């Protein structure tokens, strides 16, 4: 137990991220099922407007910040050092700190579900209810007087710290800790996309942090940044939020693109087609992602010039995205495709992401978007991108690397059940939403009139959502039974090309007995023949330094939610006398901790 609490081993931290994010994924999924149950028929099944608004707010917030991002983080943590031939990340204790901040931030946010009585609220739950986008001025104190929005503002500030710390850590790790000979253009595609993602994290999160702090000042100290009557501007919030929010979309999708770029070559027995193009288009998407944010704001009325510019930049970003898809298809062309579960999810990712991308082009056109935005058509779009894209990609990554992480294979039979239930479920759930949206159903409504004529589409969506729920149960069962019944994986169950497959599963604490020397992009495949090369270099290892555990990352993290509790309850002394000192002492002791523990 103590080993896990004080661990600085990237592999253990990766597993902690995985299980925690999986738990939040289940919570976010249950919230989705409440939403879908309520919408199964017109006039609802009795979920109140207040609870419904909390459900869709927390579903979005949870899936983005507590499920998809940290599930990616779990794979970054476990796999990146192995892929680049390193013994750990650059800052192991900072890595532990990121995890603990993430966990505590997530718990803080979800504590709002039972915190009502503490604030004298009439209901048990005071969960955030302003949408995951929390548009001002609805989220100002005047219109949202309860603690709900404060939970959201403070929770996201905490989570931002976790993301930023991890972002810097992985950038330094990938740039500085590559094995000898691993030049940037020999870096595995997953590591490359992780690097781009982390640059987006360290540039986008400061923007949302500024927005969160301004809105927090409005709510706590009566400033007027977003209050029109006080000279502020609620549209400013939208600019700041989407200036973060659009790069965030790429933070969510690029890791999945990286995963797919590993899985497809392995199971096609061919190197990634157009590696350079795939890498550069990922980098280009990262840059271009900063120039499209106002396409979330066409309905604001920014004027025809601004609408035209943002429409054009948005359409342009479809080009590098399309190029990636063609290169993935090129990777499989002429291959020997093995349909393992990981491969099914990777191909499913491509098939679904195409649909999400194409519907995206339809609302890159502002006039068309003005009929589509804020309707279920857009709900369909984001779920094809973030579930059909990111989530299927993450499942591909889990099936692919699970043997490496645990030493045991997941059941392929259950895996295929998982895939097909997910695939059918998501199309039943999300495809009809295109139609209900075009037929006039807005999003974020807890009830709708039977006369709208969208009742049957909604019923189908609900059936699909519950089918996804069933598929997740199959996945959980697969994870559970693997602990004892999973087949031992060996070093390399798939015939992969990258360094993580040269070492045992799970790897030893120090990962590599001897740090390998890399001479090609696919170290385990020779350049011309598709034949696995002999593993690892020979030679007796010298003494290897492995950093010991430390309590201080967790203690430093602990002060943050305590400060947030102080701000939430308007008790300055809790901030100054409890939260802040804990974090400061944590940082101090951390800084002076002896190097060898």
């Amino acid at each position, binding site marked *: 137990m103590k080993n896990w609490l004080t661990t600085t081993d990237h592999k253990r931290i990766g597993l902690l991220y995985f299980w925690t994010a999986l738990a939040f994924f289940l919570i976010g999924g249950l919230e989705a099922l409440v939403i879908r149950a309520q919408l199964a028929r017109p006039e609802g099944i009795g979920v109140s407007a207040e609870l419904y608004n909390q459900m869709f707010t927390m579903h979005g917030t949870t899936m983005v910040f507590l499920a998809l991002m940290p599930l990616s983080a779990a794979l970054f943590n476990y796999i990146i050092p192995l892929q680049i031939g390193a013994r750990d990340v650059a800052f192991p204790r900072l890595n532990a700190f990121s995890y603990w901040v993430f966990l505590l931030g997530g718990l803080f946010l979800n504590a709002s579900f039972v915190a009502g009585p503490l604030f004298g609220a009439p209901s048990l739950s005071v969960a955030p209810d302003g949408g995951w986008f929390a548009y001002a001025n609805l989220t100002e104190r005047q219109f949202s007087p309860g603690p709900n929005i404060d939970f959201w503002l403070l929770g996201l500030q905490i989570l931002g710290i976790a993301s930023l710390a991890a972002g810097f850590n992985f950038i330094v790790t990938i740039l500085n800790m590559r094995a000898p000979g691993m030049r940037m253009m020999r870096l595995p595609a997953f590591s490359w996309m992780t690097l781009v993602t982390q640059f987006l994290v360290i540039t986008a999160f400061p923007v949302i942090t500024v927005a969160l702090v301004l809105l927090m000042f409005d709510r706590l100290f009566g400033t007027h940044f977003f209050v029109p009557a006080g000279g502020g501007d609620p549209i400013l919030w939208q600019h700041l939020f989407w200036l973060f929010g659009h790069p965030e979309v790429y933070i969510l999708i690029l890791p999945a693109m990286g995963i797919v770029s590993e899985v497809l070559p392995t199971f096609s027995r061919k190197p990634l087609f157009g590696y350079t193009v795939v890498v550069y288009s990922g980098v280009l998407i990262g840059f271009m992602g900063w120039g499209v944010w106002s396409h979330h704001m066409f309905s604001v009325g920014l004027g025809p010039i601004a609408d035209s510019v943002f429409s054009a930049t948005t359409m342009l970003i479809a080009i590098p995205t399309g190029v990636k898809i063609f290169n993935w298809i090129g990777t499989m062309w002429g291959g*020997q495709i093995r349909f393992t579960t990981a491969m099914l999810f990777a191909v499913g990712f491509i098939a679904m992401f195409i649909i999400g991308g194409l519907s995206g082009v339809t609302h890159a056109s502002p*006039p068309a978007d003005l009929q589509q935005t804020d309707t279920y058509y857009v709900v369909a779009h984001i779920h094809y991108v973030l579930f059909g894209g990111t989530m299927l990609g993450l499942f591909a990554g889990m099936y692919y690397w699970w043997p490496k992480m645990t030493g045991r294979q997941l059941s392929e039979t259950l895996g295929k059940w998982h895939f097909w239930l997910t695939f059918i479920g998501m199309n039943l759930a999300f495809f009809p939403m295109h139609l209900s949206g075009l037929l006039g159903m807005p999003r974020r409504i807890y009830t709708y009139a039977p006369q709208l004529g969208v009742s*049957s589409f909604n019923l189908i969506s609900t059936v699909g959502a519950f089918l996804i729920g069933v598929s997740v149960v199959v996945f959980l069962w697969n994870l559970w039974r693997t602990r004892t019944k999973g087949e031992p994986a060996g070093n390399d169950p798939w015939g992969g090309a990258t360094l993580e497959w040269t070492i045992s599963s799970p790897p030893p604490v120090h990962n590599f007995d001897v740090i390998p020397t890399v001479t090609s992009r696919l170290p385990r495949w020779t350049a011309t023949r598709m034949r696995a090369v002999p593993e690892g270099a020979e030679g007796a290892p010298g003494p290897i330094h492995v950093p010991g555990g430390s309590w201080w990352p967790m203690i430093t993290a602990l002060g943050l939610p305590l400060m947030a509790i102080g701000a939430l309850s308007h008790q300055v002394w809790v901030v100054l006398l409890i939260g802040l000192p804990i974090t400061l002492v944590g940082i101090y002791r951390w800084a002076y901790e002896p190097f060898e523990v």
Partner: protein
Amino acid sequence: MPPHRLRFCLTLTALLSAVAGCGGPFPQSTLAPKSDYSTAVDQLFTDIFWWAVVVFVIVEGLLLFVIIRYRRREGAGEPKALHGHTALEIGWTLAPALILVFIAVPTMRTIFATAGRAPEGALRVEVIGHQWWWEYRYPALGIVTANELHLPVGTPILLEMTSADVIHSFWAPGLGGKRDLTQGRTTRIAFRADSTGEYWGQCAEFCGASHANMRLRVFVEPDSAFRAWAARQTGAPAPPARGSVAERGRQVFARSACLGCHTIEGVSRGAIGPNLTHVASRTTLAGALFPNTADHLRRWIANAPSLKPGAQMPPQALPEEDLAALVAYLESLR
């Protein structure tokens, strides 16, 4: 495909279309454009949609071909390692770019054509968003009403919109795209309705507890019908007959909390809730939520928040007799 599987697929398709087919007639559809604005958008969307279908068929077809053709076969040797192909990369960069030109050009044209500019002499209506109802003012006609917008067919219309509180979005899909209403700003929608009829719409920007209940109707009428409606809306309604129940209701209104928030021309000048001068001429109540019947009106006055979460009108503890009289009075305001 084996026959039993084919039959299964056909049955499934038939079943799905049967389930989906029983909807309609879709009063809030974006696919039934009835104005110059919504028609332009619909044509643009149709163009883009077919481009998307073409790309979808090509790319998904290619994907399907590859995963079927190149699945692993026993005894086949190792595949040839292909690292890339420059001509192909250039090709599949340029092809999408070319398609996007065909989408971008009509898009830009439509953006400027639907930018909210109306010709001289357009009928100007001020739209003010409130949590959770719509206020409409016709400055040229001196009319103030709520939730149900009446417009003449074939006449250029200019909606000038703002919000009294949070951000809302006016959306009547049959007549045009949505546009946000923000406190301290004025936004515009301009269009000309092509055919008469009743159009449904609702707020499209999440605006708090009863966002789902902030609905609206637009009645597009022949010119004569519109002028008749406008004539009825201007000025105070006839006072109720002496000694009638409605007259008693008017007294209840005048001594209750009602007058603090509602305007009835010649009776009260409240400015928080909807103008009730001709409330009985409207077909719906409470943000186009319920039909305007005596029963709904009575339940609404007695306990509005129970029918519409967060509604700002507090429950009115009136004696049953007073309530009935008040309803009779409001019903008389044609």
